[in-house]
């Protein structure tokens, strides 16, 4: 473990924790502008977190310890994911701890706990949300794995840092399989981050909500942690997508100084990515819940096509 590796690791986690709510605020702002509404301030998510952390949290009488620990587990999973995903540098001491498959496992762990906590209280909304979340999750997971596999086939490694390292520092080449996988990844991240066409993060309508139904019983600091974790998840997904499909500008072990440049590059990429996300959310309509399997099956099939195209063309 080198000193620069340690610095980049710490910087990455701090950056993710500090700026994930900013990304959420940015997306919300653009969404409001695109829909001709007056936008909330860019710092609105921070204000929300501040408000929630200062409130008492109310816990239902029937709640078991799972309900209390779930927010912490979810938050820890997302923070760890942000530490593993190579956002600024590929020289990360934490990266060998988990490869791409374990990364998907971390997302799954968070999902299982939040669903357990939602069912734990015993309200019908919680159970409904948990079921829907598991439905979306179990369809999105294989697609995400396939996307990561097609990237690892190209680079002969399942470690995310190695994949990004070899993609970023190889001579520029067009990979048709990665282009197809990128589309599949977009589908998966829309579903996983509870975005429109799959879920609407801004509604509490019982017929449609998935993510909001899960966290309906949480309040105070628990809710704050979960909201923060949701921002972190969006941040992590954006960073993984950017690192896999637009890997330029990420530092590696030989060039620790590129890191100074890597921060503004990442900010610029995330800014554009956030605008595109808001655009996708504006021009699409929320689909019926029963269409979601079709949506995610499409993502899975695209990812399979990416693998097949790689096998056929060798690129």
């Amino acid at each position, binding site marked *: 473990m080198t000193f620069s590796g340690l610095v980049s690791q710490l910087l990455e986690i701090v950056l993710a924790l500090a700026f994930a709510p900013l990304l959420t605020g940015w997306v919300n702002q653009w969404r409001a502008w695109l829909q001709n509404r007056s936008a909330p301030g860019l710092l609105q998510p921070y204000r929300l977190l501040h408000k929630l952390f200062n409130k008492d949290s109310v816990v239902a009488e029937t709640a078991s310890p799972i309900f209390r620990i779930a927010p912490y587990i979810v938050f820890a999973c997302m923070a760890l994911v942000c530490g593993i995903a190579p956002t600024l540098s590929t020289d990360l001491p934490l990266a060998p701890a988990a490869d791409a498959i374990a990364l998907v496992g971390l997302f799954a762990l968070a999902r299982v706990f939040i669903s357990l906590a939602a069912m734990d209280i015993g309200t019908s909304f919680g159970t409904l949300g948990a079921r829907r979340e598991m439905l979306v999750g179990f369809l999105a997971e294989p697609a995400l794995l396939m996307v990561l596999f097609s990237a690892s086939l190209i680079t002969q490694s399942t470690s995310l840092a190695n994949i990004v390292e070899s993609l970023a520092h190889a001579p*520029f*080449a*067009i990979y*048709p*399989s990665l*282009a*197809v996988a990128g*589309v599949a990844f977009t589908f998966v991240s829309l579903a996983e981050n509870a975005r429109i066409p799959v879920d609407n993060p801004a509604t509490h309508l019982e017929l449609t909500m998935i993510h909001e139904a899960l966290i309906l019983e949480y309040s105070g600091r628990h809710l704050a942690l979960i909201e923060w974790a949701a921002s972190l998840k969006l941040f992590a997904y954006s960073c993984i997508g950017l690192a896999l499909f637009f890997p330029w500008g990420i530092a590696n072990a030989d060039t620790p100084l590129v890191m100074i440049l890597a921060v503004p590059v990442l900010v610029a990429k995330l800014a554009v990515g956030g605008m595109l996300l808001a655009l996708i959310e504006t021009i699409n309509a929320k689909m019926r819940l029963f269409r979601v*399997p*079709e949506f995610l*099956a*499409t993502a899975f*099939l*695209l990812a*399979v*096509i990416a693998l*097949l*195209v790689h*096998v*056929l*063309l*060798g*690129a």
Partner: protein
Amino acid sequence: MEALLAQSINLFAAVLLVLAFAMIAQRRILTLIHLFTLQGASLVAATLVVAYLTGQHHLYYSAVITFVLKVVLIPILLHRVIQRLNVRWDVETLFNIPTTMLIGIVLVIFAFNLAAPIASLSASIAHGTLGIALACVLLSFLMMIVRAKAVPQVIGFLSMENGLFFAATAATSGMPMIVELGIAFDVLVGILILGVFMFQIREQFDSLDIRHLEKLKDE
């Protein structure tokens, strides 16, 4: 630069394949026509790149013909047909869509395996894409089989022609000019006849469901 262009042929091939899949998954006729237009556009781009790389001038002409026919003329004709017939939302498929897409994946694997030995014989720059072209043909064929209505069937037929055209460009650097011209006008005449045919079907049966054609009438 040359290497990047050669790689971009692969990219356009992948785009063709994805669009063929998107057409299978699509329920709306209007979007289907847009997808068909996009497929035509990526075909034009692929043809132009092959023409530039191999230096074969007749491929430029065929790219122009493809552009005029498949990106401009036929989509306009199709738009007018669906406006006159007033069928923008045609949701009927014989299988449900996920099943169709799974069958599609099997077809793609089959096509890739089938094309692999043929492609290794070819010396053309884009010989690897022959499998993709074959897969596009089979997928469009599948779409013709599973759609019950006339307009998506016609679009499936046209997209099958796209796949064949791409196979010709990719594997053999294009067919002789006279053959290409012949096919181009065949397709144009075909779409005109099929358009008339669609109006006749609707006149007769008050619907565009071609299953009505299976029944014989006793008069």
